[in-house]
């Protein structure tokens, strides 16, 4: 926990700051509103953390999310499938996207930046194709997953997001698989020289990323009670920002899932807080940009001090 002390402090100060400006900010409904909107970004941030630790990047997550969401909507409405059936197929779709990008990147030795940029376009195109560029309204059958009244005042998707964060962190820090991911990101040649074939690990991390996109899709679809083929445009950048704020290195080899989750919270609190004040759009964006850079800087300074 001490590792994330500066991040938690930044989060705390943000909450304090907005609560001072607007007494209604620190209230159960606001906390629920934030809790209800973070699951999609959380899943993507976990995905990005794992990919970035191996030294790769996945720019396609927003589009793959939209594709998975479209699959859920179309399958339920046009084909009359149940939610679990539809979600299962979208999981498969997300994993398939990850398998394609992972395989091309790793075996073709092409930077994941460009391969996933290609997937960003393709997946968005397929999303428009399957939905015929229309929002598919599903209704409460899926909407119930985003309702915060179900259990302890939080939504089922929120609980699932927390479970994924915990599992992601355990995978990263407590398993051989996680150690290999860090090793690949730190020094790929050393991994090869020690007789380990990195290829399956590199491909699998993109499959995990694609699968997590399907989870994110489920949560966004639930929140909108519809599938929106335009969903999550640019959300990959928020996910990357959350991971970097949380101390994940863009160069690979360093990062933590918990840190990324705190990064998600910082972004969400900032967004909600600024909205609660009704600050004008240009100022909002300037503040958001500044806070992202500042939070990342703070983490960087602290890590340097810890090493020294």
């Amino acid at each position, binding site marked *: 926990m*001490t590792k994330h*002390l*500066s991040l938690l*402090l*930044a989060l705390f*100060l943000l909450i304090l*700051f907005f609560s001072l*400006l*607007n007494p*209604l*900010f620190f*209230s159960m*409904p*606001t906390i*629920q*509103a934030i809790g*209800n*909107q973070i699951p*999609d970004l959380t899943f993507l941030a976990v995905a990005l953390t794992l990919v970035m630790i191996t030294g790769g990047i996945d720019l396609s997550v927003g589009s793959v999310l939209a594709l998975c969401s479209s699959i859920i909507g179309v399958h339920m409405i046009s084909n009359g499938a149940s939610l679990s059936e539809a979600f299962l197929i979208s999981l498969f779709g997300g994993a398939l996207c990850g398998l394609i990008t992972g395989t091309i990147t790793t075996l073709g030795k092409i930077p994941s930046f460009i391969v996933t940029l290609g997937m960003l376009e393709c997946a968005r195109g397929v999303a428009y194709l399957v939905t015929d*560029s*229309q*929002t598919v*309204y599903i*209704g*409460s059958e899926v*909407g119930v997953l985003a309702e915060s009244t179900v259990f302890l005042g939080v939504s089922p998707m929120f609980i699932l997001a927390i479970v994924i964060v915990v599992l992601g962190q355990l995978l990263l820090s407590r398993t051989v698989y996680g150690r290999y991911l860090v090793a690949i990101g730190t020094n790929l040649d050393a991994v090869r020289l020690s007789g380990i074939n990195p290829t399956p690990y590199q491909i699998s991390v993109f499959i995990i990323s694609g699968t997590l996109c399907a989870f994110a899709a489920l949560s*966004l679809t639930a*929140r*909108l*009670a*519809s599938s*929106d*083929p*335009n*969903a*999550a*445009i*640019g959300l990959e950048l928020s996910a990357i920002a959350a991971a970097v704020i949380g101390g994940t290195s863009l160069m690979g080899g360093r990062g933590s899932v918990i840190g990324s989750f705190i990064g998600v919270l910082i972004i969400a609190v900032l*967004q*909600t807080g600024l*909205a*609660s*004040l*009704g*600050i*004008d*759009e240009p*100022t909002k*964006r300037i*503040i958001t940009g*500044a*806070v992202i850079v*500042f939070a990342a800087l*703070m983490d960087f*300074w*602290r890590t340097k*001090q*810890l090493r020294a």
Partner: protein
Amino acid sequence: MSWTATLTSLKKVFTLLSALFLFSCGDTSDSERGIRVALVMKSLANEFFATMAKGAEAHQQKMPDRYELIINGIKDERDLSRQVAIVDEMVALRVDAIVIAPADSKALIPALKRAKGAGIVVINIDNKLDQELLAEEEVKIPFVGPNNLTGAQRVGAVLADNLSPSDQVLMLEGTRTSFNAQQRARGFELAMNEAAIEIVDSQSANWEMREANIITASMLTRYPDVKGILAANDSMAMGALAAVKTIGKLDAIQIVGFDNISAVNQAVTAGEILATADQHADKLAAYGIDYALTLLADENAILEDRETPVDLVTAKDI
């Protein structure tokens, strides 16, 4: 870890926070819970919504004691999820009324239903919510806004008057998921059918100038004989205009738009764009807020949907 390190970062955070404070303090604190109205719009990067925001601010300044205004928009027209989040946040902040220009005609309905359930007055402006779905969900939300279908039909008729039957035209649609994009496309189609003019190609440029520019350029290489372009908003009309200028066909191709943003107003004056439609964005929000205030004063007031005027803008009107 050391305490000095924590202390240093603490100090730095405070410096930032005080800077933030200078940015935003002044208006929001210490109001003793008067009426608060949240205006939730689409992209404030679009001049149409910026004008709408200004109109709402002017309306509030005329009666500063009557209510407090919280204005929020999203970063681009398609950021649906953020708009739903804003509605939830406004409910959490216990505002008294939400006046919303929905980014999607269907997907906003569950969030607005929650808002109504929390006792908040909800007024729909600009882009009409899906009436079938509202009925299905048993929610009643009054609508204040223009009729995009007849508006587009009239703009289309101006173009038709300047062309002859069996001429070819292109259409640039807005984001297809939004109701007003569908309505404007239908209005254009009706006007073209009436004049027996053929729409040879129609694509969505998602309301955006850059996308419209690229799409128009490629359409024009495929259909070199095109005589007119119907753009569902002015940003796309500007993009189409640039594409037409690039190939030097300004005299041969007529363009119409929708919204009357200032750049297009100038282009109409200069004779580069034939016509656009003014939906009076500044008044739209004010009408919506008026409706909200009426409902807050008397919760049993029954409000019918109110159609706001759409005026044609051509060179001779300016």
